């Protein structure tokens, strides 16, 4: 059957589309490993489905597909009628996932973490809802405590609060019962109460517990459905069509508001941790010092050597800053949280770009000031400021794109400069030349060089904007 | 004169070595493929596999 014919059948079956989840012959491969093989799954609204099976059976993969974190390699998946391939943004607005690791920022308080998630999702009445959710999971008294100081079980409960904050139509829980104490388990069981009417899919190793709380269990083995049991004791799911919440057209993922949320979150984190900026400044000053020893720079040489020296320092510091902007989120698992939010992927790119540019510009300002103090050059401020602003933007435009790519590869520390340096040669040449005119070393004017950087900035911002979707998708 | 010859040797040797490199790969892959096909048909013929 051709894909077109398959699609036509799906479109003529409104009943199937009215289900919360419809998966047809879903397959997922990671490289050469088949994690899921031709799984058919249908979940009606209000069902509480438990996924059972040994490790590596495909439970987590199935949850990742449902949450749009991963795309099916083959087959078709509809969540509330939205296609997981083409309308993933709309699905993200309906679904919440509690993963193995809670995607929480350690340095933010419990309430701040929830507020950040709420802003990404565009939740209204945010302060009230945050308070209500914290109360629901029994963390009201810990609202202003940094998340890093909470216990494992408390963090898990906070993760559940984070998932419920957006009032999801479909709640996905990946082994939610691990690491929970008795009171946490009580919160969980309350969550799984059929009276809530919420559709829930969760994975667990505890078969007995699953049969008690779920309305249906699905056992996976080797990426296939090995068995399905409708639990006899479970009350039937309340009737509903699942189409109730579905707006006529899928909502457009937001762009501007999430950028603000991401930038504000990064700045708050930096204010709490104070580790990136300070270390970058110290690093840059050290590079300056090392170059001074290496070339024995005198004041007379500064117009000739100064621009290159400064820019080499900046691109080294830049590589560290870009690397950090994604690798930190990747290592803490918080990138998953960003990917689950119904925001335009470009918002993540632009937010990161802004934060990296701001911190790099601050580092450059301090370094240039110290450089001026060391060597006393005569400087024209305008070409210098133009070169710093435009050069940093162009460098960060490409650097942020490549950092997102290299963040989850082997040897990312080496890979990023290898990718970034050759591509940013035009910025380096033009920025050094423009800076040289500022130091009076070159008779030519700065503006052709600034024009060159500006065109580079425009071209690569546009290109990165267009391709960034492909970086974050799995 | 000698420079010119050096240049030609580099070009020929370069392309030749590159072709040689992937010819080897092709040979290895084809060998692997033949072995896999043979073992597959052997399994299909044996009664134990045809459950």
């Amino acid at each position, binding site marked *: 059957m051709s894909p077109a014919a398959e699609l036509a059948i799906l479109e003529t079956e409104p009943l199937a589309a009215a289900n919360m989840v419809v998966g047809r012959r879903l397959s997922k491969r990671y*490289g050469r490993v088949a994690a899921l093989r031709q799984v058919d799954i249908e979940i009606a609204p209000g069902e509480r489905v438990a996924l059972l099976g040994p490790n590596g059976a495909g439970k987590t993969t199935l949850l990742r597909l449902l949450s749009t974190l991963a795309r099916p*390699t083959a087959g078709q998946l509809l969540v509330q009628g939205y296609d997981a391939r083409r309308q993933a943004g709309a699905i993200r607005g309906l679904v919440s996932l509690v993963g193995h690791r809670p995607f929480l920022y350690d340095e933010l308080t419990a309430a701040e973490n929830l507020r950040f998630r709420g802003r990404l999702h565009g939740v209204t009445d945010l302060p009230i809802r945050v308070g209500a959710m914290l109360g629901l999971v029994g963390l009201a008294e810990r609202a202003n405590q940094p998340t890093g100081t909470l216990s494992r079980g408390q963090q898990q409960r906070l993760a559940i609060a984070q998932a419920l904050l957006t009032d999801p139509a479909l709640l996905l829980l990946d082994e939610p019962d691990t690491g929970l104490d008795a009171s946490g388990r009580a919160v969980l069981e309350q969550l799984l109460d059929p009276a809530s009417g919420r559709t829930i899919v969760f994975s667990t190793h505890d078969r007995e517990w699953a049969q008690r709380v779920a309305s249906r269990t699905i056992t996976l083995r*080797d990426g296939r459905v090995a068995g399905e049991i409708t639990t006899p004791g479970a009350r039937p799911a309340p009737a509903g069509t699942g189409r109730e919440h579905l707006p006529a057209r899928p909502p457009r993922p937001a762009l501007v508001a999430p950028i603000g949320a991401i930038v504000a979150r990064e700045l708050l984190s930096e204010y709490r941790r104070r580790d990136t900026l300070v270390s970058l400044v110290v690093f840059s000053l050290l590079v300056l010092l090392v170059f001074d020893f290496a070339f024995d720079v005198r004041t007379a040489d500064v117009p000739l050597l100064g621009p290159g020296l400064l820019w080499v320092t900046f691109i080294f510091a830049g590589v560290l800053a870009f690397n950090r902007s994604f690798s930190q989120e990747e290592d803490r698992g918080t990138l998953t949280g960003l990917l689950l939010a119904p925001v335009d992927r470009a918002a993540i790119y632009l937010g990161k770009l802004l934060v990296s540019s701001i911190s790099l510009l601050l580092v450059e300002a301090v370094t240039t000031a110290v450089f001026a103090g060391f060597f006393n050059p005569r400087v024209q401020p305008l070409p210098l400021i133009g070169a710093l602003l435009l050069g940093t933007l162009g460098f960060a435009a490409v650097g942020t794109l490549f950092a997102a790519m290299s963040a989850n*590869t082997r040897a990312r520390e080496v890979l990023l400069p290898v990718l970034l340096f*050759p591509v940013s040669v035009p910025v380096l040449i033009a920025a050094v030349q423009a800076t040289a005119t500022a130091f009076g070393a070159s008779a030519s004017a700065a503006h052709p060089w600034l024009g060159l950087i500006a065109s580079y900035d425009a071209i690569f911002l546009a290109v990165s904007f267009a391709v960034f979707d*492909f970086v974050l998708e799995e | *004169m000698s420079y*010119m010859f050096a240049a030609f040797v580099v070009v020929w040797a370069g392309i030749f070595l590159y072709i040689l490199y*992937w010819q080897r790969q092709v040979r290895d892959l084809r060998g692997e493929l033949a072995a896999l*096909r043979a073992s597959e048909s052997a399994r299909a013929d044996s009664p134990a596999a045809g459950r």
Partner: protein
Amino acid sequence: MAASLQERTERAPRDEGRSPGAVMDRLLLQPNGLPKPPSRLWAWITAVLMVASLYMIFIYAPIERTQGIPQKIFYFHVPLAWDAYLAFFFTLVGSIAYLKTGRARWDVLAHSAAEIGVVLTSLVLITGSIWGKTIWGTWWTWDARLTSTLVMWFIYVAYLMLRSAVGENDRGARYAAILGIVGFIDVPIVHMSVTWWRTLHPQPTVLNPAGPTLPGSMLAALMVTLVTMTILFFYLLRERMLIEHLRAEVHALTDRALEQQLSEVDA
């Protein structure tokens, strides 16, 4: 490659007709979907053309007056450079098509072309360097075209490094496709910025607006080598892509064998 494997194992219907992808498949695959054997015909055509271009270079074309015999490097240097640009153009096309369609064959095209492009660019740099030694007396000058070719070489070496760092999966293919696009756009910008910076290289001789300045016989020799090298490039590209298809075939068979073992265990 993951997705071609997918296409192969599930025997997904291959789109028939005149779409570029279908044409490419017909060039590389037999009707049953297995890779074609290497082509002897292409190899012979390439070999005969090579002999013809050697004749054109050494016997037909006159010896250049000021540079003497070393000028003959030019007849290989320029077509190699042309081939390298062509290769990276194919990488661009394959990259864009892969991001648009998600079909593995486009990734195979981009990857194969990039690898060939890096080999050819290395040869361009080496022959150019030897030529430079004879006419400028130095192995390397920081002239605009040399410098931008070197940067281009680094960009596509990074492309190959990126692929090996991510591994053989569709994420690696996507990342590589992004670099294939960004890198190709970057090359002319690099060239422009380096040209502004300094230039020493001879002005373009063939695509000169006032008409070619090269004597007719030299131009003829250049054209013959240009055609030869282009044919050679397509020969290399086809064979290189066949390797990827063979690899996918091996993967598919290995997986089938594993699958069978698994189902035997189940039973």
